[in-house]
């Protein structure tokens, strides 16, 4: 296995090298290094041309220049990177890259994770309800998402997702209840389709989902939640308990009381620790290191609770408490971040328009750990949504297809013939197998994401690799483009590696035989 991966790694690296060479040659033809001088009427134009030629070393043949570039990049191995310079701005490419890589990775990781989780969940339900209204609806939506040009969606998001919502936050008057009621009914239909069941159960689901949606929207509007969003201890308790029940249902089924009590204990611990944590957050400056520490504590507590309740299957219990604990931890974190909302919103740099449309962070904002994070999240929101929309569709379609294939297999029939209930058949026997082929599309999708990021970053002014690429293309700056190609290529290789690894973890036929 290791040998196989190493060999793959080496061959892909060679391919990447060849690709950089070919593109270097092409770029030399495609880019016009004198575009800004073409219309110049300056009297010393010839000298300007000459100095540009010298600056970019254009008298050296392109092939030689490529190897010079390669030598500079090769310096990274000994810690002396030289990616060249962006001639228009005169900046070192290395310094340009620093923030850009982190920003892009942040954007893509966030979007990919959300897209995978949502896509798998929706795809799975769609497959189980094959040929139902819900299935047709999801199919249509995913095709629609496939067909949406990212740049078009991004412009719409800017208008309706940021400008209009910001306006609404500043002036929250509801002009008409009709769209809200339509949304409520649509949610009712959605959940009815997703949960299925007999006629009576469907009706109950429909009514319940509509009413809950309406109540939520009404609460949000009536309480001014939009102006001062928070979760609060009540929210932590309610959502925590909900998470406990849902996780238990998905993981072992609600019949397993022991696990249910374990997860509910987690919810109680979360609620009890809420106030003490607020003191901690107040008196102690936080950092990501602290967060990591708290996360580890959470995990330990979850494992502890899991073992305390262990029962006959300690690992099932631990797994369930672990995920419940994670959800509660994120919940408390989100609550604390939202507490800074008013302060953030009223900051002159934000000027009561909290949902950002441009950049990766607001300039001139100063605040503590929480405010900076809130700032990052508000900026991350729209570009992530734009990216998620594209790849959510493909994960949904793939999961649906592979799930349908697996559900037709003999071993699913065996599982049913054993007397397993439908939840176990789907979650334990079908899903695990359906995820296998998915592992192989993740790298492909990540590369697509990187491509999508080129557009989203450009539109949302997100200072990432994609924007760097497009800006450099427009400025005909060769070196940053080459740096982009090399680094995204490497990212793609890493993504492939991760997928291989995932595959090996999931599939014993590969893991055991190697």
């Amino acid at each position, binding site marked *: 296995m290791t040998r196989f991966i190493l060999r793959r790694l080496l061959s892909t690296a060679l*391919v990447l090298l060849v*690709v950089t060479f070919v593109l270097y040659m092409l*770029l030399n033809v495609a880019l016009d290094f004198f575009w800004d001088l073409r219309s110049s009427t300056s009297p010393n134009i010839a000298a300007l041309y000459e100095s540009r030629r010298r600056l970019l070393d254009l008298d050296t043949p392109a092939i030689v220049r490529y190897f010079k570039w390669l030598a500079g990049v090769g310096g990274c191995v000994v810690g002396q990177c030289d990616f060249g310079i962006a001639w228009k701005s005169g900046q070192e490419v290395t310094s340009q890259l620093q923030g850009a890589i982190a920003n892009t990775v942040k954007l893509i990781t966030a979007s990919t994770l959300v897209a995978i989780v949502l896509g798998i969940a929706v795809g799975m339900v769609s497959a189980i309800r094959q040929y139902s209204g819900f299935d047709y609806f999801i199919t249509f939506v995913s095709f629609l998402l496939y067909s949406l040009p990212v740049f078009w969606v991004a412009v719409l998001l800017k208008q309706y997702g940021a400008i209009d919502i910001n306006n609404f936050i500043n002036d929250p008057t509801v002009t008409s209840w009709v769209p809200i009621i339509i949304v409520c009914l649509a949610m009712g239909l959605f959940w009815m389709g997703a949960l299925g069941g007999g006629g009576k159960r469907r009706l109950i689901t429909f009514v319940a989902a509509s009413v809950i949606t309406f109540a939520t929207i009404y609460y949000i509007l009536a309480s001014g939640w939009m102006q001062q969003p928070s979760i609060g201890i009540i929210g932590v308790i309610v959502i925590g308990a909900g998470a406990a029940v849902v996780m238990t249902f998905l993981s072992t089924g609600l019949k397993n009381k022991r696990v249910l009590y374990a997860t509910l204990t987690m919810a109680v611990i979360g609620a009890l620790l809420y106030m003490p944590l607020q003191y901690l957050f107040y008196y102690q400056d936080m950092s990501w290191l602290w967060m990591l520490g708290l996360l580890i504590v959470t995990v330990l507590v979850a494992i502890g609770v899991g073992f305390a309740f262990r029962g006959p299957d300690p690992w099932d219990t631990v797994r369930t408490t672990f995920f419940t604990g994670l959800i509660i931890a994120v919940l408390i974190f989100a609550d604390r971040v939202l507490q800074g909302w008013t302060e953030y919103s009223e900051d002159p740099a934000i000027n009561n328009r909290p949902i950002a449309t441009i950049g990766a962070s607001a300039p001139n904002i100063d605040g503590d750990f929480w405010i900076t994070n809130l700032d990052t999240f508000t900026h991350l929101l729209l570009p992530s949504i734009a990216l998620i929309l594209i790849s959510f569709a493909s994960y949904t379609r793939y999961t649906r297809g592979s799930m349908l294939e697996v559900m037709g297999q003999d071993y699913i029939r065996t599982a049913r013939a054993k007397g397993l209930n439908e939840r176990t058949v789907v979650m334990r026997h079908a899903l695990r197998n359906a995820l296998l082929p998915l592992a192989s599309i993740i790298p492909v999708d990540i590369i697509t994401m990187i491509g*999508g990021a080129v557009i989203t970053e450009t539109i949302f002014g997100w200072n990432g690799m994609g924007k760097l*690429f497009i800006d450099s293309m427009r400025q005909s700056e060769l070196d940053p483009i080459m740096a982009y190609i090399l680094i995204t290529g490497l990212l793609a290789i890493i993504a492939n590696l991760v997928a291989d690894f995932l595959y090996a973890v999931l599939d014993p036929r590969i893991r055991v035989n190697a």
Partner: protein
Amino acid sequence: MSTNNDNQKLLALDETGDNAIEAKETEGLSQGRIVFRKFLRHKGAMISIVVFALVAIFAFSAQGVGPIPGWWIYSHTASGPVTNPGGSPTWSFSNFFSLGEHPFGQDEIGRDNFARVMKGTQISIIVMLIIGGVSLVIGTLVGALAGYYRGWLDSALMRVTDGFIILPVIVVGSILGKLVGGSNGPMLGLVLGGILWTGLARLVRGDFMSLREREFVDSARVAGAGDFRIMFKHMLPNAMGVIIVNTTLLMSQAIVLEASLSYLGFGIQAPGISLGQLISEYQTSFATRPWLFWWPGLFIIIIALCVNFIGDGLRDAFDPRMKTIPSWRKMKKAERMTQKEAK
């Protein structure tokens, strides 16, 4: 990929009477007609075909092709007086419904938006078809050779494919677009076709690899057929499903790609025209003249959506495992009827 093969196995092993059901459904029809019949039953695909045909007919006839003039009075280049304030669309519900002079509105210098969107649609469709055609040829050829000969040729071709896959198409597309772009649509199509074939090649390769293990290939070889004949007479028709379906799906990707590149400024640029170029040109006027932004976007979505649905219909039609979608409602009804009769 090995769907045919699996299906055969299923048929051979399945004692469940599926065999008989299958036979009953396909009695007296050639493979092609079965596929066609299944395709006709796919409602989404049928609607899409009609819509797509209408869009294409409109786009080509309204602005004309080459020297042939179209029926729409305005051309996409000529500016004129602005009819409505700001150039907003002129259709209204006066007299029940009237289109007016400029149903899609006008831009700030008075060019007719309908003419521009139709022309853009025309170019975008042409580029899409060229990309599809080029990808089809390269992808099929590479995939067939790699899958048939395997060994070193396969390795070499797959490394080439990897080289194209390692970077997002939009990145390579931008570079190549910068090289050949401008106002030359067909040329852009050719170049983009040259980078979009990789997925198809991989699928065709997989299909050929499994077809190669099928006995009819050995059977043809024993009958004295050479490599060329085996590949193109025997295997290719059996891989047609994969090829047609994926070329279709690839074309929906192609139209979005072309639009994105044109939007970024590396595809078709003014004075050339395409749907993506229109959005790029008008994006800043979204707040003031939203119709200039909405219409081209809408047409991109309609075309891509139609092509996607057609591809989906084709996939279902070619997939031997896809049984015709049963109508549960009719089944329930029939069930109730028999229950009533029993009482």
